[in-house]
């Protein structure tokens, strides 16, 4: 959005983090027999607070998984690590973004994790189609916001 600060290229940290994400996906399949899709897990959480169609019944581990996600940056800071983060400050934009991400992942049955990591690892053509589509939409959106409208 408005911030266009450069970020350092971090191939090793990113590869390491990626391997951890893959490992977690393997844990979820090996332990619970499910796909580690965060949008699906979030839908499971939503089902515990208000009636949501199509939410799965095995909500216990999903809720715990979300707490694990939230605990991660805190755990890292606790052992002296730094968590660098720059979140766009345009709140209207973030509201629109959140709405689109929620709506889109619900309709498209998945996000970067479920279709991206897990779907591609399963060699699912359906997931590949989703990944190509959301990547393309992401590239186009950033191009339009930064280079067409942003005048950068």
């Amino acid at each position: 959005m408005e911030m266009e600060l450069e970020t350092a290229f971090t191939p090793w940290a990113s590869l390491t983090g990626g391997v951890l994400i893959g490992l977690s996906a393997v844990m979820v399949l090996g332990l619970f027999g499910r796909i580690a899709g965060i949008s699906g897990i979030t839908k499971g959480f939503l089902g515990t607070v208000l009636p949501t169609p199509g939410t799965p019944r095995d909500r216990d581990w999903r809720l715990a998984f979300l707490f694990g996600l939230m605990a991660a940056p805190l755990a890292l800071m606790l052992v002296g690590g730094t968590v660098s983060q720059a979140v766009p400050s345009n709140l209207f934009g973030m509201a629109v973004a959140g709405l689109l991400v929620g709506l889109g992942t619900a309709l498209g049955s998945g996000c970067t994790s479920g279709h991206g990591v897990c779907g591609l690892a399963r060699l699912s053509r359906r997931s590949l189609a989703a990944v190509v589509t959301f990547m393309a939409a992401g590239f186009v959106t950033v191009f339009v916001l930064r280079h067409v409208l942003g005048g950068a």
Partner: protein
Amino acid sequence: MRIALGFLSGLVFGLGLVISGMSNPAKVLNFLDLAGTWDPSLAFVMGGATVTAFIGYRLVWHRRAPVLETRFDVPTNTRIDRPLILGAALFGTGWGIGGFCPGPAWTALPLLAPGTLVFVPAMLAGLWLGARASSLGILAPKGATQ
């Protein structure tokens, strides 16, 4: 046990997101900015995660059943249909605006940035609306079950 292992799985996933930089919207938006301040790091995240899952899944599938459930329950739908493509396009657009996909939004939540505090409730509202729309079959093509 289920709770502890569910938490541990989420913790490993979250650590992966934070260590890889995927939890930082600035890095995500730069990855998507091919024509500007491009940062290719996220290709390494996706590559590392997908290859690890690809190998690990094949090891897991040697088992008859998962450790804590009676059977594997993975998506069987192979149809490339309108809700899939429309949903992915909407999701990608939101991703390009905010730099958050669902996982990183959760890991960012305890850091309490104003943008995150707006994004997460909006995402939950969107998920709920999308789940309603799917269940009503508003966008499903004729004959589709999902």
